[in-house]
């Protein structure tokens, strides 16, 4: 009998504790949290401002957000960030924890006036680094990932360093772009694999690369006249 009473007491304590912890966590208010990232790169969105239920929050380097103390109900969740399309969604917030992941679509690269391309001849091929320049001629550092199209033509460089001409065409076509989140300026990068360059490569041979970048803001051209046609050590 005594043992049975003990068991009942222990079970009661467990139930009370479970109920108490559940209640403490949920409360009468709701929490909304989730991811807020660039739709293409999944990078943090610089200065993204979110509004919900008369509250707002701004994120700079974080990929997550959190609203607390929201009264359960229906709301319009709005997110705006410089150079991104605004995001708006009708949501129903329930008591406790709610999750909403937001993928912001990039709109434009701010004050884009031109591109500067650098090349690096690596083991896999010629890597291109695309930097965006603004009206002051300075590099643009904070911009969304946009769908861009890169085309290039690579020629053998003939003549001296000062006085040269385009020789045989080694490559012509589109170059696949990839995103480098860790880069400060050249987040857009591309690579021309060695196997696509139809020439037996020799040390000390240089090429001229004409690049055309198609963006929603227009086409931009640049030429690199010292492309090493051999992998650098």
């Amino acid at each position: 009998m005594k043992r049975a009473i003990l068991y009942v007491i222990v079970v009661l304590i467990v139930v009370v504790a479970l109920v108490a912890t559940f209640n403490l966590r949920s409360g009468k208010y709701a929490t909304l949290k989730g991811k807020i990232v660039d739709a293409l790169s999944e990078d943090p969105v610089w200065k993204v401002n979110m509004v919900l239920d008369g509250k707002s929050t701004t994120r700079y380097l974080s990929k997550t957000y959190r609203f607390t103390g929201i009264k359960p109900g229906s709301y319009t969740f709005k997110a705006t960030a410089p150079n991104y399309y605004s995001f708006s969604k009708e949501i129903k917030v329930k008591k406790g924890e709610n999750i909403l992941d937001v993928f912001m679509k990039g709109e434009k690269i701010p004050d884009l006036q031109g591109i500067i391309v650098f090349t690096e001849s690596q083991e896999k091929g010629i890597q291109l680094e695309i930097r965006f320049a603004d009206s002051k001629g300075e590099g643009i550092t904070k911009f969304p990932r946009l769908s861009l199209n890169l085309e290039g033509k690579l020629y053998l460089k003939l003549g001296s360093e000062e006085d040269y001409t385009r020789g045989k065409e080694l490559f012509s076509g589109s170059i696949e772009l990839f995103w480098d989140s860790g880069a400060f300026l050249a987040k857009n990068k591309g690579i021309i694999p060695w196997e696509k360059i139809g020439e037996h490569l020799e040390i000390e041979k240089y090429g001229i690369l004409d690049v055309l970048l198609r963006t929603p803001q227009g086409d931009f051209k640049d030429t690199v006249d010292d492309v090493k046609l051999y992998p650098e050590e």
Partner: protein
Amino acid sequence: MRKIMVFWGVFFCFLLYLQTTSMAQAPMMSEQLVYSLNVYNGKGYGGAFNPQTENTIYFIANKDSAISARTTLVYFWPITAKFMAGWQTLNEEVVGTLEILKEGKLIKSLKKQDNSLYYPEGYWGEISLLCIDEDAHTYYEKYKEATEEYYQKISEFYKARIEYRKKMDEFLEEIKKRREAGEEFTSEEIEKSIPKEPKPPEGPKFYTTEPRKDYVIDLPVGSYQIRIRAEDGTIIQDSQKNLVVFTSRRTGGTGYEIIPGNRWTMKESCDDPARIIYAAGKNTLYFNPFTQDEYNELYYNKLEDPQNPGRVERWRWVHITPIKDVTLLFLKGEEVLQRVKRLPYYVKQIPGPTLGYNITEYDKEKQPYERPTFEGYKLDLSSTLERTGYQINLEKKEGGFFKGGKREVRLVRKENSRLLYALSIFPLVIGVVIFLKRRRRLAP
């Protein structure tokens, strides 16, 4: 039996679950809205930051304190067990109006104001003042002008020193020539005609920080709430904090900071008049008397750094201003044994492999390029003094004693220390005796 074991197993697993859920998870690096504080602490202004983990900000009543919200990266620093702000990685201003509420009602809406800190005795001095609006710019401009003037004087000093060295070489050459020619001089004659070395200019004695924009808060004692309303009318998430505005319980006390001569960096304090100052053997003590106010320990600790611990039921004395125009008396009963004046001292590290330092009286003439390490009332305690019956007190310039300045001094000496060694060995001796006795008993 098996059922019981299963039951208790489940019960302990449940306890473990409860324990893990209650444990605080320290984030490695998180983006947070924090408050950057520049608070009046009873004697001047001190900076601190309030991370999200702290729900309450503490201010002293009826004094201006500056506060602003910033977004930064916060990380946990296990060495100090405190959250730190990575200002260099991210430091973005939170724009809006600061709202102050009392019992849920809005009582003030504040816009940011220009402010700067003015240190009349220099950055390391004991006084700092918060200058607001026009004053912030005026004092900063004054400091900039004084600094530019100093750089100008420094440039002139370097030129004058080059000139002096040139003249000195010419002078020595001339003396040499005249000596070789058989001319004789007295040292007074030489001293008269020797070129005078230029003195380096002194830098600005005061310092002013560059003006910045903060919310300046001045409130009476009470409990409040603060939050920031953005320009679009929304309340900024995580900007809500409790604000406790407090004041001192008692003011005008006298406390001492004591610098032991044999370990000068280990300063001690004797703030309560009932406390006794114990000095070990022959020693030199440097006393620094202060006026002091008594504050709630928790409130004041949190004012200095919102992450500091403290107990709400305890009180602490806080040194406010140094007491300078007095004479420290060392007394035995009514008899004055020493009268000590406040002097500046300089701590000089002993060069070479020998560790240690010497504390010497600072001489401005002999040490023009040095600054005194500290100021204080030096009291030399001889080993021949008796153990008890001594006091220190502060005598005012106009006569009479300074209120609350009396402290009892006792001297601790190593006496009959050998007896202590004998006492400590005693249990060991007993142990050995028992061990030997038992061994003998067990022996066949």
